[in-house]
């Protein structure tokens, strides 16, 4: 049979890119601990999906003191978890640049991937220039097509997070206590798993989980 040996024997990827605030203030009131637990649970849940139509790939960008890649984007089956530490300022703008470079990189996220999901969590205002990097991210060819979620922790001003969502259907979620970080991640996890279980992962009519069920 001529064709069998040519079809790529891997499911199409569904990328999930997390932009996580690990600045010093996240070390207060157990927030960083909740964030570590929530992300770890999300990865474990993705690993347990055995009826997926796509393979979830997870990449994690952190911003605290400096913005950096905490975990390269890899198939979730290969992901292992290293706890993040809270430290320093909030260079969110630099994290937008890293996210844009990652999503535009055809070697890391191929053209056969489904539309990515981007998740942003922060408990404070950016301490660097964020407007230009965010505009570049939202106007870039591929990142502009990503599904986006955002959570503000504490009494954060929602301006940046609202701009990040860029009129997408989702609202900015707010957490008054650390436990709500986990609930937010369960909601994001459910949203992603509903896509990977769907026969049309990129179509808008996918039944979405109701955020009120999680908060």
């Amino acid at each position, binding site marked *: 049979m001529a064709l069998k040996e040519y*079809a790529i024997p891997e499911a199409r990827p569904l990328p999930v890119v997390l932009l996580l605030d690990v600045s010093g203030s996240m070390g207060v009131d157990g927030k960083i601990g909740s964030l570590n637990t929530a992300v770890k649970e999300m990865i474990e849940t993705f690993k347990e999906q055995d009826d997926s139509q796509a393979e979830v790939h997870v990449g994690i960008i952190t911003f605290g003191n400096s913005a950096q890649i905490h975990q390269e984007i890899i198939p979730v089956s290969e992901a292992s978890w290293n706890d993040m530490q809270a430290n320093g300022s909030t260079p969110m703008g630099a994290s937008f640049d890293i996210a844009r470079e990652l999503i535009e990189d055809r070697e890391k996220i191929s053209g056969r991937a489904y539309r990515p999901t981007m998740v942003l969590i922060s408990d404070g205002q950016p301490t660097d220039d964020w407007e230009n990097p965010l505009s570049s991210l939202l106007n870039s060819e591929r990142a502009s097509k990503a599904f986006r979620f955002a959570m503000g922790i504490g009494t954060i001003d929602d301006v940046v997070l609202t701009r990040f969502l860029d009129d997408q259907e989702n609202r900015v979620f707010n957490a008054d206590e650390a436990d709500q970080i986990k609930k937010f991640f369960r909601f994001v996890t459910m949203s992603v798993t509903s896509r990977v279980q769907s026969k049309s992962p*990129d179509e808008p009519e996918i039944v979405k989980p109701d955020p009120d069920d999680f908060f």
Partner: protein
Amino acid sequence: MDNENTNNSIEYFGASVRGPSNKSKKKLKEDAWLGVKRSWGYLIVTCDGMGSKESARKGAKEACHAVRDAVQLWQAYDAPIEFLFNTIHLFWEYRIFPLDPNDCATTCLFAYLNNENEITTAQLGDGVCVIRDKNGNIDLLDGDDSEFTNNTTGLGIAKSIEQWRYSSLKTFVPGSAVLLATDGVSEDVEKSRLGDMTYDIVSEYKGMSPRKRWETLCYELRNWATPHHLDDKTITLLWAEPYVMENKI
């Protein structure tokens, strides 16, 4: 006859199957293909109606016929290829009227071989056109890989004919082949292997009867090896006999 087809050793065939996504939604296949032999040459067309559009199936089927009619008109004149693309858009909108073109959006790929053994391939939207010449050289047209899967342009979406891509080979001699495939196939095959895939399919299928070719290709497309594949899948091929084996690279 001055305009008689003189390509007596040309063969073509194709097959199209419904993907698991449309099957689960109890929708009909939204890919379409057409192959014709006329006095003015040979033509194969492959179209992928966009799944999120309500009349995608009709859009794809009518696009195949619009290309046939447009090529027939175009080949009779010494007109630039832009004339052909404009005519395809015009004929397609005429055929789907009164439906909204956006509701019928479809990709469109075709290969036209004229009586001077010159082949023209063209593509609007994703999928792939592969020309493999008798020496194993590959000329590839493909979709915009800056996008993600299932995000593409097409008839009903493109605002100008500048989004068409095209290529030609002036010596479509024995041993040459062209393959058209919708994205259900092309996105699950490494680009670097498309030339070999073209060669292998022609080599394996050329000895079969037309019915056996169709049945076998349908079977292979239904049993696609990529896990959790979802899309409709279509492949069409056209080649010049004798298809010589020793040039595989």
